[in-house]
């Protein structure tokens, strides 16, 4: 039997392979397994349908946030156009589903591939641009994509929006929150697995080298333009995948939600979760989506109590403010995000009662 590994009381890693391990101890693996079992076998039958809807939203946001984290956290290219790519994925799925008679499980990856091609087009400016300038270029990309989604009426039907056919998977019709719950979370797990492992390959190392210093990376023989494009492609693949799932889940889509606000939301997820940390993005997605829901619930209950009816306070400003405040506070007080908070909590437990 394999020897179980426990927490070492120091850094005893001797080679690079040990440095790359995902689970430090076998307990981590065990707890992950227990958590996944609870997620799939217990959770969907215990919580209310509305909570399942919220969980689904978190799952979709987490997929997109992981993609953005690969771009921002690992490759160091700040993109303000992720919301638009999410929209491209949603529209690609909608157009493919209505025009071609393909099954659900082929349309979602196909939409993601289309999005990654679009993402590569908007990654082209990264040949010459970096840092601030690239961020501005992606900001422009956001507006241009938004415009195209709204005005290419023969394809996207403009403000009318597109209604998608029912999704079927292996003869099983996906309808209702619970069936989508399984699809979304299985996708999330697969995508997380791919992302975590991709970072450990030479591609991931090249991304990190470009983030740390692109000139030096080029000097070490990394073709930086190719890898930057690849990073854009992977990141928008994730966004497109999430967007396609979202389109199927929402049934009918318009171009309205895919605005700059959505892009900022995704960046907030990455920053609040922790840049350069895949699990962090999942935390960030849970945090931001949860924050949205809490604020909605709060304003609704306030309306019902009659506190704010006279002043006509609606949710948007409060949401906007809380969002900004969350981003600002995390940057000022915990720039490494929730992933770091989680690490600190874990090490507290690990060292208890004899912290040394």
């Amino acid at each position: 039997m394999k020897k179980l590994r426990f927490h070492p009381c120091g850094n005893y890693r001797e080679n690079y392979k040990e440095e790359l391990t995902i689970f430090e101890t076998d307990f981590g693996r065990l707890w992950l397994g227990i958590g996944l079992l609870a997620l799939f076998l217990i959770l969907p039958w215990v919580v209310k349908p509305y909570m399942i809807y919220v969980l689904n939203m978190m799952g979709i946001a987490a997929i997109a946030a992981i993609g953005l984290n690969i771009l921002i956290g690992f490759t160091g290219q700040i993109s303000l156009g992720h919301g638009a790519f999410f929209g491209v994925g949603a529209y690609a799925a909608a157009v493919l589903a209505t025009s071609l008679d393909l099954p659900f499980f082929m349309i979602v990856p196909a939409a993601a591939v289309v999005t990654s091609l679009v993402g590569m087009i908007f990654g082209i400016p990264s040949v010459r641009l970096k840092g601030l300038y690239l961020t501005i270029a992606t900001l422009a990309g956001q507006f241009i994509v938004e415009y195209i989604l709204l005005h290419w009426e023969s394809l996207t039907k403009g403000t009318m929006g597109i209604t998608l056919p029912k999704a079927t998977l292996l003869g099983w019709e996906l309808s209702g929150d619970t069936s989508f719950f399984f699809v979304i979370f299985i996708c999330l797990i697969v995508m997380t697995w791919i992302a975590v492992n991709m970072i450990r390959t030479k591609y991931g190392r090249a991304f990190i080298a470009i983030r740390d210093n692109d000139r030096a990376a080029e000097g070490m023989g990394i073709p930086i333009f190719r890898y930057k494009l690849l990073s854009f492609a992977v990141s928008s693949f994730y966004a497109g995948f999430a967007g396609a799932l979202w389109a199927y889940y929402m049934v009918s889509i318009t171009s309205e939600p895919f605005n700059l606000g959505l892009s900022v939301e995704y960046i907030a997820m990455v920053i609040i979760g922790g840049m350069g940390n895949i699990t962090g993005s999942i935390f960030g997605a849970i945090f931001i989506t949860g924050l949205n829901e809490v604020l909605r619930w709060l304003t609704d209950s306030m309306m019902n109590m009659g506190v704010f009816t006279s002043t006509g306070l609606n949710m948007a400003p409060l949401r906007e403010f809380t969002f900004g405040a969350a981003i600002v506070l995390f940057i000022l007080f915990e720039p490494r995000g929730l992933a770091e908070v989680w690490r600190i909590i874990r090490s507290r437990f690990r060292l208890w009662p004899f912290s040394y």
Partner: protein
Amino acid sequence: MDFFVQLLVNGISIGLLYGLSAMGFVMIFKSSSVLNFAHGELLAFGAFLFLAMVTWAHLPLPAAFLFTLAGCFALGFIVERIFLRPLIGEPLIFVIMLTVGLASMFKGLLLLVWGGNLHTYPDFLPEFLSIDWGIIHVAPVYVATLIIGMIFLSLFGLFFKYSSQGIYMRSVADNQKAALSLGVHVKRVFALSWAIAALVAGMSGIVLGIINGINVHDLSAIGLKVFPVVILGGLDSIGGAIIGGIIIGLLETFTGGYLSPSLRDVVPYIVLVLILLVKPYGLFGLKEIERV
């Protein structure tokens, strides 16, 4: 021909406004290399503060104007002190994201206080400022914009070229560490540049408010339109901001007039991408040379 001339005049007037709005943005970038996504909200803050002074406090116009400028100056100072100072020396993305966060915070606050409706100032600009030459008609507010823009342009030019604070600002923008080691008070430079930038932004906000009415959403959208303007002119050139603004304004009105009105809002961004691909440092920007 009449249509063309009127579009030309409109374009230049709108462009001057963009240029004026972009000035404060360039000011911050020039001294601290910070890309300020909250610029539109600074504009809106100035506009709303002036509105509050005029309609709620019923101050006479000059006093209201001075108080607004003082308020904006203080706001810039406070923002720098509380939010930006802890980030000196941190990676770029944190600074950019901080300004994005600040933008939504300010927007939320302004919406909470004033709501999303359109407000207007009472009419106060004198009529003699307007220009009427045959087919060319220019409203007084645009003439005022031109005058304000010229005053600020020359003031800033002199400030950056001759005053010691201006030279400190340029040195800090060029290389923070070197400036620190040569005894420049970097923190004071940052605080001052944010304060001045907020002041200029507040003033542009007032001018914009006179023309279009005051609305949080519109003003923050102008804060984003500043990006094509400054990229075209060069991120660190104040004169370039004005020229970039005029070019973008002309482009907007001509596409709006001749091609299609819906294309109008997206044309600046298309131009922006093209410029970035061809001439990343803009028309008048300083080329950065980078060493490993």
